[in-house]
Protein backbone atom coordinates (compact mmCIF):
# COMPACT_ATOMS: atom_id res chain seq x y z
CA UNK A 1 0.00 0.00 0.00
CA UNK A 2 2.65 2.42 1.02
CA UNK A 3 4.92 1.68 -1.93
CA UNK A 4 2.03 2.12 -4.30
CA UNK A 5 1.14 5.47 -2.78
CA UNK A 6 4.74 6.57 -3.15
CA UNK A 7 4.74 5.57 -6.78
CA UNK A 8 1.48 7.41 -7.35
CA UNK A 9 2.90 10.56 -5.82
CA UNK A 10 6.05 10.29 -7.94
CA UNK A 11 4.09 9.78 -11.14
CA UNK A 12 1.80 12.63 -10.21
CA UNK A 13 4.77 14.89 -9.55
CA UNK A 14 6.34 13.99 -12.87
CA UNK A 15 3.11 14.73 -14.73
CA UNK A 16 2.60 17.99 -12.86
CA UNK A 17 6.19 18.93 -13.69
CA UNK A 18 5.74 18.31 -17.39
CA UNK A 19 2.38 20.08 -17.43
CA UNK A 20 3.82 23.02 -15.52
CA UNK A 21 6.79 23.33 -17.83
CA UNK A 22 4.49 23.23 -20.85
CA UNK A 23 2.15 25.87 -19.49
CA UNK A 24 5.01 28.12 -18.48
CA UNK A 25 6.73 27.89 -21.83
CA UNK A 26 3.51 28.29 -23.78
CA UNK A 27 2.47 31.35 -21.81
CA UNK A 28 5.93 32.83 -22.29
CA UNK A 29 5.60 32.17 -25.98
CA UNK A 30 2.19 33.74 -26.00
CA UNK A 31 3.30 36.89 -24.22
CA UNK A 32 6.34 37.16 -26.44
CA UNK A 33 4.16 37.09 -29.51
CA UNK A 34 1.55 39.44 -28.13
CA UNK A 35 4.19 41.99 -27.10
CA UNK A 36 5.65 42.09 -30.57
CA UNK A 37 4.58 44.93 -32.81
CA UNK A 38 5.52 45.91 -36.33
CA UNK A 39 6.32 49.56 -37.13
CA UNK A 40 2.94 49.81 -38.90
CA UNK A 41 1.14 48.76 -35.74
CA UNK A 42 3.15 51.25 -33.71
CA UNK A 43 2.31 54.03 -36.13
CA UNK A 44 -1.36 53.04 -35.86
CA UNK A 45 -0.96 53.32 -32.05
CA UNK A 46 -1.86 49.69 -31.40
CA UNK A 47 1.06 49.34 -29.00
CA UNK A 48 0.83 49.66 -25.21
CA UNK A 49 1.89 53.06 -23.92
CA UNK A 50 2.74 52.04 -20.37
CA UNK A 51 4.50 48.71 -20.91
CA UNK A 52 7.66 47.33 -22.43
CA UNK A 53 7.08 45.79 -25.84
CA UNK A 54 9.08 44.75 -28.89
CA UNK A 55 9.43 46.29 -32.28
CA UNK A 56 10.88 44.34 -35.15
CA UNK A 57 11.81 45.09 -38.71
CA UNK A 58 14.67 46.11 -40.92
CA UNK A 59 17.13 48.87 -40.10
CA UNK A 60 16.64 51.61 -42.69
CA UNK A 61 19.78 52.28 -44.73
CA UNK A 62 21.74 55.42 -43.92
CA UNK A 63 19.83 56.13 -40.72
CA UNK A 64 22.34 54.74 -38.21
CA UNK A 65 23.85 57.68 -36.35
CA UNK A 66 26.11 57.52 -33.33
CA UNK A 67 25.66 60.28 -30.78
CA UNK A 68 28.48 62.31 -29.21
CA UNK A 69 28.75 60.09 -26.11
CA UNK A 70 29.86 57.29 -28.44
CA UNK A 71 27.45 54.79 -26.91
CA UNK A 72 24.04 56.04 -27.89
CA UNK A 73 22.85 55.25 -31.38
CA UNK A 74 19.84 56.36 -33.34
CA UNK A 75 18.39 54.41 -36.21
CA UNK A 76 15.08 53.74 -37.88
CA UNK A 77 13.23 50.45 -38.15
CA UNK A 78 10.81 49.72 -40.95
CA UNK A 79 8.47 46.99 -42.18
CA UNK A 80 8.46 48.68 -45.60
CA UNK A 81 5.17 50.35 -44.72
CA UNK A 82 5.95 52.50 -41.68
CA UNK A 83 9.06 53.71 -39.88
CA UNK A 84 9.81 53.92 -36.16
CA UNK A 85 12.80 55.93 -34.88
CA UNK A 86 14.81 54.05 -32.25
CA UNK A 87 17.30 55.27 -29.66
CA UNK A 88 19.56 52.80 -27.90
CA UNK A 89 22.45 53.17 -25.45
CA UNK A 90 24.74 50.19 -25.31
CA UNK A 91 26.75 47.79 -27.37
CA UNK A 92 25.11 46.64 -30.57
CA UNK A 93 25.30 42.95 -31.46
CA UNK A 94 27.86 41.88 -34.02
CA UNK A 95 25.32 41.19 -36.75
CA UNK A 96 23.59 44.55 -36.38
CA UNK A 97 23.82 46.48 -39.63
CA UNK A 98 21.75 48.65 -41.89
CA UNK A 99 19.35 46.73 -44.07
CA UNK A 100 19.29 43.76 -41.68
CA UNK A 101 16.55 42.53 -39.38
CA UNK A 102 16.43 43.59 -35.72
CA UNK A 103 14.17 43.15 -32.71
CA UNK A 104 14.25 45.97 -30.18
CA UNK A 105 12.74 45.75 -26.69
CA UNK A 106 11.76 48.93 -24.87
CA UNK A 107 9.05 51.54 -24.58
CA UNK A 108 7.95 54.47 -26.64
CA UNK A 109 8.59 58.01 -25.39
CA UNK A 110 6.32 61.03 -25.58
CA UNK A 111 8.43 62.26 -28.47
CA UNK A 112 7.48 59.23 -30.55
CA UNK A 113 10.97 57.76 -30.29
CA UNK A 114 11.28 54.12 -29.26
CA UNK A 115 13.79 53.93 -26.39
CA UNK A 116 15.25 50.44 -26.54
CA UNK A 117 16.69 48.59 -23.54
CA UNK A 118 17.85 45.73 -25.70
CA UNK A 119 18.55 45.39 -29.40
CA UNK A 120 18.85 41.93 -30.94
CA UNK A 121 20.05 41.27 -34.45
CA UNK A 122 18.59 38.60 -36.70
CA UNK A 123 20.85 36.55 -38.85
CA UNK A 124 20.49 35.88 -42.52
CA UNK A 125 20.09 32.36 -43.85
CA UNK A 126 23.03 32.57 -46.26
CA UNK A 127 26.36 31.16 -45.11
CA UNK A 128 29.07 32.15 -47.57
CA UNK A 129 32.80 32.74 -47.37
CA UNK A 130 33.55 36.43 -48.11
CA UNK A 131 35.17 35.76 -51.50
CA UNK A 132 32.16 33.75 -52.67
CA UNK A 133 29.75 36.35 -51.37
CA UNK A 134 31.69 39.05 -53.24
CA UNK A 135 31.80 37.24 -56.55
CA UNK A 136 28.18 36.16 -56.38
CA UNK A 137 27.27 39.81 -56.06
CA UNK A 138 23.76 41.07 -55.85
CA UNK A 139 22.32 39.81 -59.12
CA UNK A 140 22.60 36.18 -58.17
CA UNK A 141 21.61 36.74 -54.56
CA UNK A 142 18.50 38.55 -55.70
CA UNK A 143 17.72 35.59 -57.92
CA UNK A 144 17.87 33.26 -54.94
CA UNK A 145 15.72 35.55 -52.85
CA UNK A 146 13.11 35.72 -55.58
CA UNK A 147 13.22 31.98 -56.07
CA UNK A 148 12.82 31.06 -52.43
CA UNK A 149 10.11 33.61 -51.78
CA UNK A 150 8.26 33.12 -55.04
CA UNK A 151 5.01 32.00 -53.47
CA UNK A 152 5.33 34.01 -50.29
CA UNK A 153 4.78 37.70 -49.66
CA UNK A 154 7.85 39.81 -50.42
CA UNK A 155 10.38 39.03 -47.77
CA UNK A 156 12.26 42.25 -47.65
CA UNK A 157 13.68 45.05 -49.69
CA UNK A 158 17.35 44.42 -49.30
CA UNK A 159 18.33 46.79 -52.04
Amino acid sequence: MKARQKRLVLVGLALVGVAGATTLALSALQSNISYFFSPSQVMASEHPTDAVFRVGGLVVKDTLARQEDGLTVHFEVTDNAAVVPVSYTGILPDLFSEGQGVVAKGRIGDDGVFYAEEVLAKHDESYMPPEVADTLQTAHVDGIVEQTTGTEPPRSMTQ
Partner: protein
Amino acid sequence: MTINWFKFASPAAFYPIAGRLIPWFSGIALALVLVGLFWGFFLTADQLGGSNPQKEYYRIIYVHVPAAWMSMWLYLVLAGWSAIGLVFNTRLSFMMAKAVAPTGAIFTFLALWTGALWGRPSWGTYWDWDPRLTSELLLFFLYIGYIALHSAIDDTRRADRAAALLAIVGLVMVPVIFLSINCPDPNQCASLHQRSDPGSIHLSILIPMLTMTLGLWSYSFAAVFARLRTIILTRESDNAWVRDVIAQETTA
Protein backbone atom coordinates in the same frame (compact mmCIF):
# COMPACT_ATOMS: atom_id res chain seq x y z
CA MET B 1 14.28 -16.22 -49.46
CA THR B 2 12.55 -14.52 -46.61
CA ILE B 3 14.21 -13.33 -43.49
CA ASN B 4 12.31 -13.80 -40.28
CA TRP B 5 12.73 -10.34 -38.79
CA PHE B 6 11.04 -11.39 -35.59
CA LYS B 7 14.04 -13.58 -34.94
CA PHE B 8 16.04 -10.41 -34.31
CA ALA B 9 13.29 -8.88 -32.21
CA SER B 10 14.18 -11.02 -29.23
CA PRO B 11 16.63 -9.50 -26.75
CA ALA B 12 18.70 -12.70 -26.75
CA ALA B 13 19.18 -12.50 -30.51
CA PHE B 14 19.84 -8.80 -30.66
CA TYR B 15 22.32 -8.68 -27.79
CA PRO B 16 25.24 -10.20 -29.76
CA ILE B 17 24.29 -8.30 -32.95
CA ALA B 18 24.45 -4.99 -31.08
CA GLY B 19 27.75 -6.04 -29.58
CA ARG B 20 29.22 -6.68 -33.00
CA LEU B 21 27.90 -3.40 -34.43
CA ILE B 22 29.19 -1.12 -31.66
CA PRO B 23 32.88 -1.11 -32.73
CA TRP B 24 31.88 -0.33 -36.32
CA PHE B 25 29.65 2.58 -35.37
CA SER B 26 32.24 3.89 -32.92
CA GLY B 27 35.00 3.76 -35.52
CA ILE B 28 32.90 5.44 -38.21
CA ALA B 29 31.78 8.09 -35.72
CA LEU B 30 35.33 8.88 -34.66
CA ALA B 31 36.57 9.07 -38.25
CA LEU B 32 33.71 11.29 -39.45
CA VAL B 33 33.93 13.64 -36.46
CA LEU B 34 37.69 14.05 -36.90
CA VAL B 35 37.30 14.75 -40.64
CA GLY B 36 34.44 17.15 -39.95
CA LEU B 37 36.39 19.04 -37.28
CA PHE B 38 39.52 19.30 -39.42
CA TRP B 39 37.52 20.45 -42.40
CA GLY B 40 35.46 22.90 -40.39
CA PHE B 41 38.40 24.50 -38.62
CA PHE B 42 41.18 24.41 -41.23
CA LEU B 43 39.64 24.21 -44.68
CA THR B 44 36.93 26.84 -44.39
CA ALA B 45 36.93 30.62 -44.24
CA ASP B 46 37.49 32.13 -40.78
CA GLN B 47 34.69 34.60 -41.28
CA LEU B 48 31.58 34.80 -43.41
CA GLY B 49 30.73 37.51 -45.89
CA GLY B 50 27.79 38.89 -47.79
CA SER B 51 24.52 39.58 -46.00
CA ASN B 52 25.45 37.37 -43.04
CA PRO B 53 28.95 38.55 -42.06
CA GLN B 54 29.46 36.33 -39.04
CA LYS B 55 32.88 36.12 -37.44
CA GLU B 56 34.73 33.01 -36.20
CA TYR B 57 31.82 32.11 -33.90
CA TYR B 58 29.88 30.88 -36.96
CA ARG B 59 31.89 27.66 -36.54
CA ILE B 60 29.49 26.71 -33.77
CA ILE B 61 27.26 25.68 -36.69
CA TYR B 62 29.32 22.47 -36.95
CA VAL B 63 28.08 21.23 -33.57
CA HIS B 64 24.88 23.21 -33.13
CA VAL B 65 22.99 22.08 -36.20
CA PRO B 66 23.99 18.39 -35.89
CA ALA B 67 23.06 18.39 -32.18
CA ALA B 68 19.70 20.03 -32.90
CA TRP B 69 18.95 17.55 -35.70
CA MET B 70 19.93 14.61 -33.52
CA SER B 71 17.75 15.87 -30.67
CA MET B 72 14.69 15.80 -32.93
CA TRP B 73 15.61 12.61 -34.78
CA LEU B 74 16.27 10.68 -31.57
CA TYR B 75 12.93 11.82 -30.21
CA LEU B 76 11.24 10.39 -33.30
CA VAL B 77 13.13 7.14 -32.68
CA LEU B 78 12.12 7.17 -29.00
CA ALA B 79 8.46 7.76 -29.80
CA GLY B 80 8.57 5.26 -32.66
CA TRP B 81 9.88 2.40 -30.52
CA SER B 82 7.44 3.38 -27.76
CA ALA B 83 4.54 3.12 -30.20
CA ILE B 84 5.75 -0.21 -31.59
CA GLY B 85 6.12 -1.47 -28.03
CA LEU B 86 2.61 -0.42 -27.08
CA VAL B 87 1.05 -1.90 -30.20
CA PHE B 88 2.94 -5.19 -30.56
CA ASN B 89 3.92 -5.57 -26.93
CA THR B 90 7.50 -6.45 -27.83
CA ARG B 91 10.02 -6.28 -25.01
CA LEU B 92 12.94 -5.19 -27.15
CA SER B 93 11.09 -2.10 -28.45
CA PHE B 94 10.62 -0.73 -24.96
CA MET B 95 14.26 -1.41 -24.13
CA MET B 96 15.27 0.37 -27.33
CA ALA B 97 13.17 3.40 -26.38
CA LYS B 98 14.65 3.49 -22.90
CA ALA B 99 18.17 3.26 -24.33
CA VAL B 100 17.62 6.19 -26.70
CA ALA B 101 16.32 8.69 -24.13
CA PRO B 102 19.56 9.72 -22.31
CA THR B 103 21.50 10.24 -25.55
CA GLY B 104 18.61 12.27 -26.94
CA ALA B 105 18.49 14.38 -23.79
CA ILE B 106 22.24 15.05 -24.08
CA PHE B 107 21.91 16.24 -27.68
CA THR B 108 18.95 18.44 -26.78
CA PHE B 109 20.96 20.04 -24.00
CA LEU B 110 23.89 20.50 -26.38
CA ALA B 111 21.66 22.15 -28.98
CA LEU B 112 20.51 24.64 -26.33
CA TRP B 113 24.01 25.18 -24.93
CA THR B 114 25.78 25.67 -28.25
CA GLY B 115 22.87 27.81 -29.41
CA ALA B 116 23.27 30.09 -26.40
CA LEU B 117 27.00 30.47 -27.07
CA TRP B 118 26.23 31.26 -30.69
CA GLY B 119 23.34 33.61 -29.96
CA ARG B 120 25.30 35.80 -27.56
CA PRO B 121 27.90 37.10 -30.05
CA SER B 122 25.61 37.13 -33.11
CA TRP B 123 22.10 38.08 -31.96
CA GLY B 124 23.21 39.77 -28.77
CA THR B 125 21.60 37.41 -26.27
CA TYR B 126 22.16 33.95 -24.79
CA TRP B 127 18.49 33.24 -24.51
CA ASP B 128 15.26 34.56 -25.93
CA TRP B 129 11.73 33.19 -25.89
CA ASP B 130 12.03 32.66 -29.58
CA PRO B 131 9.54 29.99 -30.73
CA ARG B 132 12.28 27.60 -31.75
CA LEU B 133 14.31 28.05 -28.57
CA THR B 134 11.20 27.58 -26.46
CA SER B 135 10.07 24.45 -28.24
CA GLU B 136 13.58 22.97 -28.04
CA LEU B 137 13.56 23.62 -24.28
CA LEU B 138 10.22 21.82 -24.10
CA LEU B 139 11.75 18.89 -25.95
CA PHE B 140 14.46 18.76 -23.29
CA PHE B 141 11.77 18.67 -20.57
CA LEU B 142 10.06 15.84 -22.44
CA TYR B 143 13.23 13.75 -22.47
CA ILE B 144 13.76 14.48 -18.76
CA GLY B 145 10.10 13.69 -18.11
CA TYR B 146 10.41 10.36 -19.93
CA ILE B 147 13.51 9.39 -17.94
CA ALA B 148 12.05 10.57 -14.61
CA LEU B 149 8.68 8.88 -15.18
CA HIS B 150 10.37 5.64 -16.15
CA SER B 151 12.60 5.58 -13.09
CA ALA B 152 9.75 6.57 -10.75
CA ILE B 153 7.74 3.42 -11.47
CA ASP B 154 9.24 0.27 -9.97
CA ASP B 155 7.37 -2.23 -12.09
CA THR B 156 9.25 -2.41 -15.39
CA ARG B 157 6.27 -3.22 -17.57
CA ARG B 158 4.18 -0.40 -16.14
CA ALA B 159 7.11 2.01 -16.37
CA ASP B 160 7.64 1.08 -20.03
CA ARG B 161 4.02 1.68 -20.93
CA ALA B 162 3.55 4.89 -18.96
CA ALA B 163 6.75 6.45 -20.29
CA ALA B 164 5.90 5.31 -23.80
CA LEU B 165 2.59 7.14 -23.60
CA LEU B 166 4.34 10.31 -22.51
CA ALA B 167 6.80 9.97 -25.40
CA ILE B 168 4.00 9.61 -27.93
CA VAL B 169 2.02 12.55 -26.53
CA GLY B 170 5.15 14.68 -26.63
CA LEU B 171 5.67 13.83 -30.28
CA VAL B 172 3.61 16.89 -31.12
CA MET B 173 6.64 19.05 -30.22
CA VAL B 174 8.88 17.85 -33.05
CA PRO B 175 6.93 19.42 -35.93
CA VAL B 176 6.49 22.53 -33.79
CA ILE B 177 10.26 22.91 -33.49
CA PHE B 178 10.76 22.19 -37.14
CA LEU B 179 8.12 24.61 -38.35
CA SER B 180 8.61 27.26 -35.70
CA ILE B 181 10.85 29.45 -37.84
CA ASN B 182 9.02 29.25 -41.09
CA CYS B 183 7.91 32.79 -40.75
CA PRO B 184 7.60 34.06 -44.30
CA ASP B 185 8.16 37.72 -43.53
CA PRO B 186 10.90 38.62 -41.03
CA ASN B 187 9.15 41.90 -40.37
CA GLN B 188 6.09 40.14 -39.07
CA CYS B 189 7.50 37.86 -36.41
CA ALA B 190 9.65 38.01 -33.32
CA SER B 191 11.54 34.87 -34.22
CA LEU B 192 15.31 35.24 -34.17
CA HIS B 193 15.89 32.05 -36.08
CA GLN B 194 15.53 32.52 -39.80
CA ARG B 195 14.32 30.12 -42.37
CA SER B 196 17.14 27.68 -42.93
CA ASP B 197 17.79 26.29 -46.34
CA PRO B 198 20.78 24.04 -47.09
CA GLY B 199 20.85 25.60 -50.56
CA SER B 200 21.93 28.93 -49.14
CA ILE B 201 24.83 27.42 -47.20
CA HIS B 202 28.04 27.30 -49.20
CA LEU B 203 29.33 23.78 -49.89
CA SER B 204 32.58 24.42 -48.01
CA ILE B 205 30.47 24.90 -44.85
CA LEU B 206 27.66 22.48 -45.68
CA ILE B 207 29.93 19.47 -46.22
CA PRO B 208 31.75 19.57 -42.85
CA MET B 209 28.38 20.25 -41.17
CA LEU B 210 26.84 17.16 -42.78
CA THR B 211 29.98 15.14 -42.00
CA MET B 212 29.64 16.06 -38.32
CA THR B 213 25.95 15.17 -38.46
CA LEU B 214 26.69 11.70 -39.85
CA GLY B 215 29.45 11.29 -37.25
CA LEU B 216 27.15 12.13 -34.35
CA TRP B 217 24.45 9.95 -35.88
CA SER B 218 26.86 7.04 -35.94
CA TYR B 219 27.93 7.88 -32.39
CA SER B 220 24.27 7.72 -31.33
CA PHE B 221 23.97 4.21 -32.70
CA ALA B 222 27.03 3.10 -30.73
CA ALA B 223 25.93 4.78 -27.49
CA VAL B 224 22.32 3.55 -27.74
CA PHE B 225 23.40 -0.02 -28.51
CA ALA B 226 25.85 0.00 -25.61
CA ARG B 227 23.13 1.18 -23.24
CA LEU B 228 20.68 -1.30 -24.75
CA ARG B 229 23.04 -4.20 -24.01
CA THR B 230 23.22 -3.22 -20.35
CA ILE B 231 19.43 -2.89 -20.18
CA ILE B 232 18.99 -6.31 -21.82
CA LEU B 233 21.37 -7.96 -19.36
CA THR B 234 19.67 -6.35 -16.38
CA ARG B 235 16.17 -7.31 -17.46
CA GLU B 236 17.00 -10.80 -18.69
CA SER B 237 19.37 -11.75 -15.88
CA ASP B 238 17.12 -14.67 -14.90
CA ASN B 239 17.36 -16.29 -18.30
CA ALA B 240 19.71 -19.11 -19.15
CA TRP B 241 21.26 -17.39 -22.17
CA VAL B 242 22.53 -14.54 -19.98
CA ARG B 243 24.43 -17.09 -17.87
CA ASP B 244 26.19 -18.41 -20.95
CA VAL B 245 26.95 -14.93 -22.26
CA ILE B 246 28.23 -13.70 -18.93
CA ALA B 247 30.66 -16.57 -18.69
CA GLN B 248 32.29 -15.46 -21.94
CA GLU B 249 32.11 -11.70 -21.48
CA THR B 250 35.16 -9.88 -20.33
CA THR B 251 34.50 -7.06 -17.95
CA ALA B 252 36.68 -4.69 -19.93
